[in-house]
């Protein structure tokens, strides 16, 4: 990538000699750079755009599902195709898009920049992580090319439906290996980022001066180290069951199907926070910058992130309330407690906006969309955390609506992150006009798709059914939901068009288009290889703001 304009003079003096040596000569570009680069920025972009490709592909599958459900007794696709659609939709959204898009995409690109490092601690290892991830993604899709089709048992693949006798064919194996590869990719990324954060921080960048985004990524990475190996092991056991007669999950031969559920959710619930925490970080950064204020309750925010991370390890069985095989009060108490640190974050976000000068651009609008949708998803989460209410709502569309509100809240923050950081990555701003239209379509589309699903759940519609009886009172709500899905698709198209055109012809961004606060805004857009020629002094968690606004330093005390 090239620097698009002459760099203006930095407002601060370079107080150290140049931090790197520039090797002259041609640099790789295009496909060669994509394949061989060990640069954290290139790998971050690879993750971001592979993740977005996953989002679009899995989104198309959602459109197939919503089209199938638009009227009762519909025969748009067959039962098996429908089952493949929701299985691979869920798997790709979680393992390819929602998680890696943030923790590996934004994480890779931004963590070294935000802590003033030249690259990740293990650049080649980083490259390997990406290729494992892309391999996993490809295998998940390759299932559709096999004779029996892709996996058809839902993204949490409850044994024994996943055993060879119930799900024959290579589709299920490709699902197992695909998830296994993305699992390894996640573990390697976690090792890399944790090492980077602990060893490569610039002078002055103590832990309590790291941006909230970096803190959240750090906690996420520890959750990955605790959760992903369990997932990968569970997948390995399943593969042994299918091919070597392991019988781990086969009750007829002494195995235990419930073991799969415990192993899977021991990964699966931390996974929810592995997905959510980076987006919390993105939202925090955007809110602070666009309000021109420091993050309110910075240390309380970090404490909340740490306690969410800790509690996340002890709530997995709230997905298993109806199995009759878990200690209900313990998991209910832990699950309800998570509402407290999450609430702290909400009030800190409001405090961050309070008495600021808020710029309502597209990035900020997406952030507010995140707040609204995540708030609603959080409230329904408190309802579902109670076993008695979960007995009523378990596996109905109420649950589908709940977690889509949570995850799409996160995706909203992710789109906000694109509008906020793509100018840094490409050197060009995205169009505000198209951006605001895209935001409006996505916000209306998402809500129209998923709000009616709460009522569908209360009216007793189970998830994952391919069609439904016309007399259940579900017809109108399903129709609304499907129309919402089409509006969402339009919103995605508008945003994709915006990214495509603005990348080529967008307004030049300059180094610091938003009056940013953290270190990534101190280098050029896009940043040069190895990032920094000079760093501003790091005396708080917003060194660039301090350098640009010496008259508006954070007020100490309260």
């Amino acid at each position, binding site marked *: 990538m090239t620097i698009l304009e002459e760099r203006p003079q930095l407002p601060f003096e370079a107080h150290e000699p140049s931090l790197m040596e520039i090797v002259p000569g041609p640099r790789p570009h295009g496909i060669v750079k994509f394949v061989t680069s060990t640069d954290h920025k290139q790998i971050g972009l690879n993750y971001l755009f592979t993740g977005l490709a996953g989002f679009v592909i899995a989104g198309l599958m959602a459109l197939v599902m919503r089209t199938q459900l638009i009227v009762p007794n519909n025969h748009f696709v067959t039962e098996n195709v429908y089952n493949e659609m929701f299985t691979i939709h869920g798997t790709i959204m979680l393992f390819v898009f929602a998680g890696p898009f943030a923790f590996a995409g934004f994480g890779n690109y931004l963590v070294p920049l935000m802590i003033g490092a030249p690259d990740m601690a293990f650049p080649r290892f980083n490259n390997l992580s990406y290729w494992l991830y892309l391999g996993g993604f490809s295998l998940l899709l390759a299932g559709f090319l096999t004779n029996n089709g892709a996996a058809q048992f839902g993204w949490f693949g409850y044994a024994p439906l996943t055993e060879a006798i119930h799900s024959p064919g290579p589709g299920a194996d490709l699902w197992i290996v695909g998830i296994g590869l993305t699992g390894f990719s996640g573990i390697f990324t976690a090792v890399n980022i944790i090492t980077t954060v602990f060893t490569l921080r610039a002078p002055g960048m103590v832990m309590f001066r790291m941006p909230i985004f970096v803190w959240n990524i750090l906690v996420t990475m520890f959750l990955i180290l605790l959760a992903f190996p369990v997932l990968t092991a569970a997948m390995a056991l399943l593969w042994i069951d299918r091919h070597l007669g392991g019988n781990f999950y086969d009750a007829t031969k002494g195995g235990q199907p419930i073991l799969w559920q415990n192993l899977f959710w021991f990964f699966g619930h931390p996974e929810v926070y592995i997905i959510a925490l980076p987006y919390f970080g993105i939202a925090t950064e955007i809110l602070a910058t666009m309000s021109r*204020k420091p993050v309110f309750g910075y240390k309380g925010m970090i404490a909340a992130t740490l306690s969410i991370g800790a509690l996340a390890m002890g709530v997995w069985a709230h997905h298993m309330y109806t199995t009759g095989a878990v200690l209900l009060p313990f998991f209910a108490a832990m699950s*309800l407690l998570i509402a407290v640190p999450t609430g702290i974050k909400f009030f800190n976000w*409001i405090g961050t906006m309070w008495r600021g000068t808020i710029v309502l651009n597209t990035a900020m609008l997406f952030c507010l969309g995140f707040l609204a949708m995540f708030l609603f998803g959080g409230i329904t989460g408190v309802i579902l955390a109670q076993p008695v209410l979960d007995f009523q709502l378990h*596996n109905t569309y109420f649950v589908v609506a709940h977690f889509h509100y949570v995850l799409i809240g996160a995706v909203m923050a992710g789109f906000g992150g694109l509008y906020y950081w793509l100018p840094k990555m490409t050197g060009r701003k995205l169009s505000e006009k198209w951006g605001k239209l895209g935001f409006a379509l996505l916000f209306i589309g998402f809500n129209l798709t998923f709000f009616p699903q709460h009522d569908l759940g*209360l009216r007793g519609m189970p998830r994952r059914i391919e069609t439904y009886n016309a007399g259940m009172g579900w017809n109108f709500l399903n129709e609304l939901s499907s129309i919402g899905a089409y509006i969402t698709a339009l919103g995605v198209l508008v945003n994709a068009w915006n990214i495509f055109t603005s990348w080529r012809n967008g307004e030049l961004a300059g180094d610091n288009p938003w009056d940013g606060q953290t270190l990534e805004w101190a280098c050029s857009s896009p940043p040069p290889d190895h990032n920094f020629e000079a760093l501003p002094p790091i005396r708080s968690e917003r060194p660039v703001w301090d350098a640009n606004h010496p008259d*508006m330093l954070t*007020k100490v005390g309260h």
Partner: protein
Amino acid sequence: MHQLTGLLATNFGSPSGVTTQDHYTRELWRLSGYFSVPIGLIVLGLITFAIVRYRHRPGEDRKPAQFQYHIPIEATYTIIPLVIVAVIFGVMYNAENHVTKVSAKPSVAITVDGFQWGWRFVYPNGHVQIGTGDYNNINNNNDLPVLVMPSNETVQLHVVSLDVVHTFYVKEFLFNRDLIPGINNTFDVNVTKPGLYPGQCNNICGEYHAYMRFLVDVMTPTQYAAWYANQPACSVTTAGVPGIQNGSCAAINAGADFTGYTQAPKG
């Protein structure tokens, strides 16, 4: 005042159940509503206020405040949610004990077997009600397996899976319970309102998951007694497959091969 109590009695959109457990479930649902609706509105209100009041207007020369901590406020919004969560947990704990209570002496005990993709209900005398949905027409409500049970009595359901994980779910019971190979689950229901209620498998179990439906026919105790007296021991009632009304008990209990007792999958 009357309007206020009317508002507080709202069910926040939740349907009414027909069992004695309904009371606990909906009380908890309402309690969650009392807390979450105001909290949600307060948070949304604060956000809206902030973006309207503090948004940057062109030409305006207001400097953003640069405060970062306010310990008393931060402590308040930590402690109040903790208290709310504790209250919800306390009420929930009590409700949970009632809902999951299993009677030692139920009036009727029925075994519910789930299989791909149908149900088998086995009564104490060995009578079997068995069937699958109509794989060709989801709108066909006539050929579904029927779980017959009395009202106003404690009915104990013993749910067993014969192959993969299924979930017994009847919307009007406000209740789900999984059928998992290797785990024997038992729960009680006491239906207060006789009637015909649709039920459905609520856990993905393969190709025809959507068709794994059944009906619950709740009769008054006298009607039930009359119905039960008419079912000879080890008789079989099939749904949608006429001609095998009297299969043999031993044959149908021998394994999970229900060919002939259930409707054939299409294709």
